[in-house]
């Protein structure tokens, strides 16, 4: 493990620091400490959702619901337009003298297209906002990080963070965890 005296060329290759935790409690305390220190480009990594961690990290609420709402509206409009165009305009279906276009008969299909569009946008929107799929990432080069999908908790702070300083950041992480702070290299 190198200490604070890194040269400039080393720093260019540094992605950030990674530190592990064994318990949920420790992670939450540490996350609050990193948040209060003012860091912005950092993250916590956990095998499952930990309630309270969003607040401890200061994560802002996602815009996903608005995307899904708009997609739902689009779906409803598409469903109505499809039925109006096909059955009332392009090929008028006259059945039992009923009006060519009447909303009640078109509700079930419009409802289904609303749900369909909204659901697809929920998954695609979530992935897009998260920047996934991203099959390769600097963190994957760390061996102990493999346990993040099993039973370990991690905090990583990126070297790109405006507040990042090799010595100070390491000190902060060392103060919140009793486990070694590891350097993660940028992908070459």
């Amino acid at each position, binding site marked *: 493990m190198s200490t604070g005296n890194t040269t400039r060329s080393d720093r260019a290759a540094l992605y950030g620091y990674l530190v592990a935790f064994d318990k*949920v*409690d420790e992670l*939450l*305390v540490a*996350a*609050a400490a990193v948040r*209060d220190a003012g860091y912005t480009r950092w*993250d*916590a*990594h*956990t*095998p*499952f*959702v*930990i*309630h*309270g961690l*969003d*607040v*401890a*990290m200061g*994560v802002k609420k*996602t815009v*996903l*619901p608005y995307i*899904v709402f708009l997609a739902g509206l689009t779906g409803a409009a598409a469903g109505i337009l499809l039925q109006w165009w*096909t*059955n009332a305009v392009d*090929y008028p*279906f006259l*059945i039992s003298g009923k009006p060519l276009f009447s909303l009640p*008969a078109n509700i*079930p*299909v419009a*409802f*289904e*297209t609303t*749900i*369909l569009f*909204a*659901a*697809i946008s*929920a*998954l695609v929107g*979530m992935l897009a*906002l*998260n920047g*996934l*799929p*991203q*099959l*390769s*990432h600097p*963190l994957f080069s760390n061996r102990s990080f*493999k*346990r*993040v*999908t*099993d*039973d370990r908790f991690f905090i990583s702070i990126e070297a790109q963070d405006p507040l990042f300083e090799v010595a100070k950041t390491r000190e902060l992480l060392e103060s919140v965890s009793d486990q070694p702070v590891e350097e993660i290299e940028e992908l070459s």
Partner: protein
Amino acid sequence: MSTPVSYLDNTGDDPAVRARLVVGDNDFHSVTNTVCGIVEQPRPPKFWWVAFAASSSLTLVLFACIGYLVTTGIGVWGLQVPVGWGYAIVNFVFWVGIGHAGTLISAILFLLRQRWRTSINRFAEAMTIFAVVCAGIFPGIHVGRIWFAYWLFPIPNQMSMWPNFRSPLLWDVFAVGTYATVSLLFWYMGMIPDLASIRDRATTKLRFYIYGVLSLGWRSSNRHWHRFEFAYLLLASLATPLVLSVHSVVSFDFAVSIMPGWHTTIFPPYFVAGAIFSGFAMVVTLIIPTRKFFGLEEIITARHLENMAKIMLATGMMVGLAYSTEFFVAWYSGNTYEAFTFLNRAFGPYAWAYWTMVTCNVLVPQIFWFRKLRNKTIILWVASILINVGMWFERFVIVVSSLSRDYLPTSWGYYRPTAIDVLTFVGSFGLFFTLFLLFVRFLPMVGMAEVKGVMPQAHLDRPGHRGHGDYHGDIAGVEVV
């Protein structure tokens, strides 16, 4: 076995004691080991091969029957005037109904914060998808000329015609199509973190690459989890009205017609209750052997089975209520044809099917009132199979008894399925079980990330904390507003 029974028993209902959702001496790592271990075995166990041999042979029977149907025509089925709707629609409704329990468990129980759902939701969602696959086959082949199946969809075609959007049969295409898509999205999204678990434990290159691509580079970032949770909540909120709409639309196929016994407003709720009832029965039928053979009893616990028995009891009673309401309305309406149809169901030529249905769907679930009986795995398993049988007969009774004797006695008839009808239906079970066996072999069948979240270790361990999973003012340095 040296383990005392009480060790695995979490079925107590003392309200002062929070029942554990994962029993035994488990931590996060042991849950990962148990679930991933099934996928990571170099070879599937022997019983898997036996089951797979049987189910894939039945699948071949299904394909052979479809081949015969397509090359010969629907004369190979027992359809005759007046019964022009037979096994195909009965099987379609049966299979779509089975799927409903999966969505109920994954979406509705999620919104209702029923945390016990976490152990079984992946499994039930998989069952939903496979059941919908089986259901989708029947409308596709039911006219025998599968090359016209695209007429189901609003696609510009050489006749310059569009499908009729006032027909519930077309609503069905949209409802079931949306249902299949949304179920698949929901299932896959929930699986991403667990696929990443398998990726991170991979010992072979092949496994690493396959699960690596499938998990999309998931790195368990909390910023990602935040959006993931939102997407999950949104999908659950969308799937809830969707699942209620699907079987309602299926029931419109009948209710919108003028057939006595079909033309009733009770159909949508009645169909939805029946669908959930049959779906839970199928979950129980599948999960009891699976948890036993793969050693998942500490994760899919006795309490999970008991809860499902209670839901079957509730939905079974709803179905029973619907059966009696139909009779009441038939009498109260004063409509001769309606009254005749229901007397004919109970005492006519299909009385045997009607009473099989009542016995299996209304009487059998009554045993779940008794704690001793519902907690006996073998009794629960046999009861669940009987309920599946009963629910198939429910659809048979609805379809066939109404069609075979409608308004004009001169046009009455008696419907008899042919061997091809029966083999096609049995073959669809082969397809269902084949897909299911592939799922338990290659994909994580328990949602590990969700199960870990409801384990006591996931919560703060300090005196005075009530363990509800929130941290309001509980931890120094974390300000929760």
